[in-house]
């Protein structure tokens, strides 16, 4: 299945990527599995994505590592928010 992935703020800068559309292999069905899949691309992905305080959203709602993802979903990775 295909999903759209977005990266924000310091994470976007560390990865050098604001977003991408990715074809996921069978076995990647939630946010935590997607994170592991992206981390396997190498150190430049593994290091930024291993930050303990990373936050997630699925279809623009806050999500957790166990949140399911499906075809066409929009998944976002970002640092803790600092607005206001």
């Amino acid at each position: 299945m295909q999903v759209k992935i977005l990266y924000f703020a310091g994470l976007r800068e560390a990865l050098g990527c604001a977003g991408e559309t990715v074809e996921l292999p069978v076995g990647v069905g939630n946010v935590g599995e997607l994170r592991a899949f992206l981390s396997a691309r190498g150190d430049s992905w593994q290091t930024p994505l291993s930050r303990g305080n990373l936050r997630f959203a699925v279809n623009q709602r806050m999500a957790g590592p166990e949140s399911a993802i499906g075809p066409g979903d929009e998944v976002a990775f970002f640092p803790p928010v600092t607005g206001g």
Partner: protein
Amino acid sequence: MTPGAISVQREDFDPGREADALIAGRRDVGAVATFVGLVRDANEGCGVDAMTLEHYPGMTEAALEEIVADAQQRWPLQGVRVIHRYGRLETGARIVFVAVASAHRGAAFAACEFIMDFLKTRAPFWKKEETPDGGRWVDAREADDDAAARWQKKA
């Protein structure tokens, strides 16, 4: 929620005009509480000349609408207005505006603080400061999480 209650914009806003608009033509409002957040000239001992606010278009508006809806569930509110800016903002610039209208001050004060506390922990905005040593992403503060968490006990 009344239309136009939430704006995410680059442009500045006029707090007085926004507060007036909230109560225009109404006679049932007894209190308006407003909050304005500004770009401070220092953070964690570092000089700050300006900052750039990034956000997640779409999710930002949805998160703010949910926070306002939560506030309207908790208190009898007659009007709410939330404005949050993004882009580059210099020291002294207005960042955020929250105004809450209610019959009495208790609900207005409480709802205004509630909205700010959840905005700081749930709305997808990120600040990058310009300091003499270069750009620096602002770290989330534990105190902000604590401020939002205390509302759970008061429910």
